[in-house]
């Protein structure tokens, strides 16, 4: 029982990171119908920025806020400069641009912070101690039913619930949220009721990247080291979460993220011999595949006519 609880909480806290990135994916998908393959790398860039602010002596809390601001500017800028002009051409062009951005940001992280440990393919890693947002010393835990729950896990879960709740309120009870839902539903009609769709999309991308930045920072604090491939697998877990929850459902992204985290930890824990740490990514793969084949709209999404 204690072991189960332990794995459950570990799964939930890992899942909260996937949930944050999945939220970003969903916000962008709802607004524009694009899957942002650069989401993970945007988060990583902001995470490196937080690291840099920390190096400059900024307290970690403030550094995280500044990092989210960097993420917001990066996301909003991407929408205005790259995605908006290119989306007139084709969805494929947008896909390629996000892939290009993925590679460019990954290289840029290495170029700015990577040092000479990187091979020329820029897919190496730099090990750097990353400041944690939450207490993560070995002694920072409390006991529940015999399971040692890290304070860090607890706070991560609180964080994702707060962010998720905040986004829920924003979507459903604010004018910006109403505009975002309207643009997602019918872009042309949004213009006709006087919504500046361009601004709304820009802000959506900004929020998505800022939330993703938070996910990146928290994850970096969890693993205590930042390297350039940090986000490859996290992106796939987040995408699996968004797929499971439904690409147009923010609530689904949170549930999906937590579910993926829990499933992974339970499967890896109880089927250690068969799955273990190595094949955890296989779980994400199977979830994506199964959901797309059996219920393409996900658990909470609404099925739409295919776009591509």
């Amino acid at each position, binding site marked *: 029982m204690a072991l189960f609880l332990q794995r459950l909480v570990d799964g939930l806290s890992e899942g909260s990171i996937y949930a944050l990135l999945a939220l970003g994916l969903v916000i962008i998908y709802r607004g524009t119908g694009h899957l942002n*393959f650069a989401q993970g790398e945007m988060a990583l860039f902001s995470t490196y920025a937080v690291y840099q602010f920390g190096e400059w002596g900024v307290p970690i809390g403030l550094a995280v806020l500044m990092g989210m601001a960097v993420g917001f500017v990066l996301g909003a800028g991407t929408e205005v400069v790259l995605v908006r002009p*290119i989306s007139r051409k084709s969805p494929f062009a947008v896909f390629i641009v996000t892939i290009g951005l993925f590679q460019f940001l990954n290289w840029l992280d290495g170029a700015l912070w990577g040092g000479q440990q990187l091979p020329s393919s820029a897919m190496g890693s730099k090990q750097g101690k990353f400041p944690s947002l939450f207490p993560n010393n070995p002694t920072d835990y409390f006991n529940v039913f015999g399971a040692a729950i890290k304070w860090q896990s607890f706070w991560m879960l609180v964080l994702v619930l707060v962010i998720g709740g905040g986004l829920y309120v924003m979507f459903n009870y604010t004018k910006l949220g109403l505009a975002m839902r309207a643009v997602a539903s019918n872009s042309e009609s949004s213009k006709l009721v006087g919504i500046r769709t361009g601004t709304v999309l820009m802000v959506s991308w900004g929020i998505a990247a800022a939330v993703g930045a938070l996910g990146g920072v928290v994850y970096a604090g969890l693993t205590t080291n930042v390297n350039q491939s940090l986000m490859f697998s996290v992106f796939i877990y987040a995408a699996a979460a968004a797929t499971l929850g439904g690409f147009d459902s923010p609530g689904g992204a949170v549930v999906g993220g937590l579910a993926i985290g829990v499933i992974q930890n339970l499967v890896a824990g109880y089927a250690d011999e068969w799955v*273990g740490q*190595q094949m955890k990514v296989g779980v994400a793969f199977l979830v994506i595949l199964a959901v797309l084949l059996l219920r393409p709209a996900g658990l909470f999404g609404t099925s739409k006519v295919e776009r591509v």
Partner: protein
Amino acid sequence: MSLPIHLRSGGLPSWAIRVGATLSVAGLLLWIPTHGSDSLIDTCTTATMLMAAAMSLNLLLGFTGQISLGHSAFFGIGVYTTAIGVTRWGWSPFVTLPVAFAVAFVVGVLVSLPALRIKGVYLALVTLALGLVFPAFVKWPKIEWLTNGSRGLDKTGFKFNKANPTYELFGWNPWGNLRGQNVKPFYFWVGVSIVALVYLVCRGIVKSRMGRSLVAIRDNSTAAAVMGVNLAVTKGIVFGLSAAMCALPGSLSAIRTGTVTPDSALLTVAGSITFLVIMVVGGSGSLWGPVLGAVVYQFIIERTSGWSDPNRIPGAVRPLFSWSDVAPGSGIFALTLILLMFFAPFGIVGLWHKAVATVVTVVPKPAGTASVVHQETAPPES
């Protein structure tokens, strides 16, 4: 003389251009292994591998509209089929090539089954996950007896007799000893052969009735189905062929380097992205696009690999890159990719056609079929 010059297809000048282009490509192919430096030959061999991989991806994307970010897995299947065959069962590396082709074909057909129901970027997502799974799978403890886990495998290439290097195929030496004691040209020739094979397969498919039905699928699935194109079978075969052809350069990679590890760049998602980038920069949907893309890619990577040391950056661009001690190759290429999407969505080949059209236009024969083929590769300089 006014531009553009009009040439009649099938006329003498148009044939002269074709023959000239063919001769210069052939000349280049002979020149590189016989007169080029070792590092040039190495670079070109790598380029041939990238060409074949990007062409296989191109067949899938350019002609069926399916996006794959998992071709690194098929490349990896080639790598590991050869490595396992050679080290565990003592096969000749040559034998492993068709085996790798067959294994990857089967896996490709299997992957194509769900891919039939998954469209566009979702397929990209699934295949991206596949690309991430492959290295993890190779490291899986359950199959460590075969793959040796994260330690990888050794001595996966030819066992050469140092004194008298011959590259025998069942006792027959088809390539001759083009460069004395040096083994590099041999790998180059294998690479070129693979590219030629992949090119011919792609060309064969594209020009065939199947190719036309492929384009029909890409443009409109429903219409293709109504017209009686058997979607499932056609897509399955193409996916299988694409995977199989991507495994061939993988095999060459294992043969050439002699060691394999699950985390080497081309086996991971980074490889998939590299193939995609090469294909798009060269020109997706065109036969020669990936060839040009690979040459340009490898050229840029080689040229800039030393730029981590600011003193080695040429003076003119030094201020642009000297701030970083990381080689800018992949960053430059990523930027190129993004810019091309804005200004030349059909890549270098698209730009080439546009540029050529302002100088020469080939007028199709009145009743015959149009053939506007400019088959020149930019010679790689070293």
